[in-house]
């Protein structure tokens, strides 16, 4: 167990990180992600208001559809990344555990007139992997038809759950929000299904890294813009054209002219691991830094993400990685390392 944002989190279960990771890619893994912050936004024009602090097209979000976006700062950096779900009469947000207090302060400042409820008594479970749909269909036959990034409600083990088809592994899967009092029963019910094994924080990190997904505080921070991070796809056309959100000046400039650095995938040669903080060099000159790195159990090799000066951000570019003072060869590669397998319907 390790401390994380005030929660005790299991790094691994007895299966160990490698096997947990592979189990999630081949069958189904259950994650307890109740540390994530769940927030309800109510009020007329909640979507219009929220668009002041996120660059996503929230107004264009259909009922029970969700989108990945970020809170941007005045200077165009990322204050947190989040999911926004349109529940019809309210918006439902999922934010990072370590940022939730700052996020709430930000929303209180900018979303005056909206009712902002931090749902302290809600748990969040994630069931991820190719067999997740097999398990969920056993509970609710319609679950199989849910497209990626959509939501519905049904009972699991007698408890009402808000179920979304989403996750942080690159696999097909579901996230299950519910009141705390049902969390243990629902988790045990899911773990009793033959396809399902519990997955800890270690494999959560290696799964998302292989999927090329950002971890806030590592691959994203208040100095990093969504454009540098390769997240321009999260900004709809109307928002690009009309702006109206914090940090639009920088984001618009970087959309038009290239940003000075970009997030890239990095494949170290051989088996040396390039972890966060490793300098990336070309001909002895530092061109960037690794922001996440480790071993990719499905890739069966070391993998990393980091930021490099834009002129070097091309697939196939050879780089050196300064690991423990020694320059080790590596190469810029395409993200993700492992193909996404979302259910698009």
């Amino acid at each position: 167990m390790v401390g994380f944002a005030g929660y005790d989190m299991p790094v691994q279960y007895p299966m160990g990180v490698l096997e947990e990771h592979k189990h999630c890619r081949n069958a189904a893994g259950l994650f307890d992600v109740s540390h994530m912050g769940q927030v309800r936004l109510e009020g007329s024009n909640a979507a219009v208001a929220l668009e002041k602090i996120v660059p996503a097209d929230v107004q264009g979000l259909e009922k029970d559809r969700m989108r990945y976006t970020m809170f941007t700062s005045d200077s165009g950096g990322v204050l947190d990344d989040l999911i926004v779900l349109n529940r019809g009469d309210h918006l439902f947000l999922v934010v990072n555990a370590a940022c939730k207090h700052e996020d709430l302060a930000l929303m209180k400042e900018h979303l005056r007139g909206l009712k902002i409820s931090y749902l302290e008594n809600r748990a969040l479970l994630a069931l991820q992997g190719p067999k997740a749909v097999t398990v969920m269909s056993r509970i609710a036959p319609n679950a199989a038809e849910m497209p990626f990034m959509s939501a519905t409600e049904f009972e699991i083990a007698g408890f009402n759950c808000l179920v979304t088809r989403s996750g942080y592994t690159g696999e097909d899967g579901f996230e299950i929000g519910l009141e705390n009092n049902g969390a243990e029963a629902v988790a045990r019910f899911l773990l009793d299904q033959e396809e399902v094994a519990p997955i800890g924080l270690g494999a959560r990190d290696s799964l998302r890294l292989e999927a090329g997904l950002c971890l806030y505080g590592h691959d994203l921070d208040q100095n990093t813009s969504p454009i540098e991070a390769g997240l321009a796809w999260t900004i709809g056309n109307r928002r690009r054209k009309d702006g109206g959100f914090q940090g639009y000046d920088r984001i618009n400039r970087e959309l038009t002219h290239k940003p000075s650095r970009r997030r890239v995938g990095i494949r170290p040669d051989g088996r040396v691991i390039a972890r966060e903080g490793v300098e990336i060099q070309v001909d002895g000159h530092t061109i960037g830094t690794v922001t996440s790195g480790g071993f990719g159990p499905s890739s069966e090799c070391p993998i990393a993400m980091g930021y490099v000066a834009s002129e070097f951000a091309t697939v196939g570019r050879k780089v050196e990685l300064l690991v423990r003072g020694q320059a080790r060869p590596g190469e810029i590669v395409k993200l993700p390392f492992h193909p996404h397998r979302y259910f698009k319907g």
Partner: protein
Amino acid sequence: MTDILFSEEHEWVRVDGDVATCGISEYAQVQLGDVVFVDLPTLGAEVNKDDDCAVVESVKAASDVYAPVSGEVIEINEALETDPGLVNSDAQGDGWFFKVKISDASELEGLMDEAAYAKFCKG
């Protein structure tokens, strides 16, 4: 070959004549979790007792490995390059790291035997 000896940093040593085979303990591999890379010292390097001379990378973190005795590195376990998981499956056998030609045998006296080490791990 002598019985196995352990350091407080969780390395083990087995001595055969003036050659010490070194690795990390079973206790250490359990703590580290799945090992994915071992950065071994270079052949011929002179290592001093308690110097960091190798790095073991697990899925969780990178950890330094300290030389339990001083001497010249005369052999490294090349099998770890292709199969670092040997450290997990047989930490105190096939998962050995390197062999040194002992330069000061008196350093062995500061190491623990199996019973003392088991007690040490229990804290």
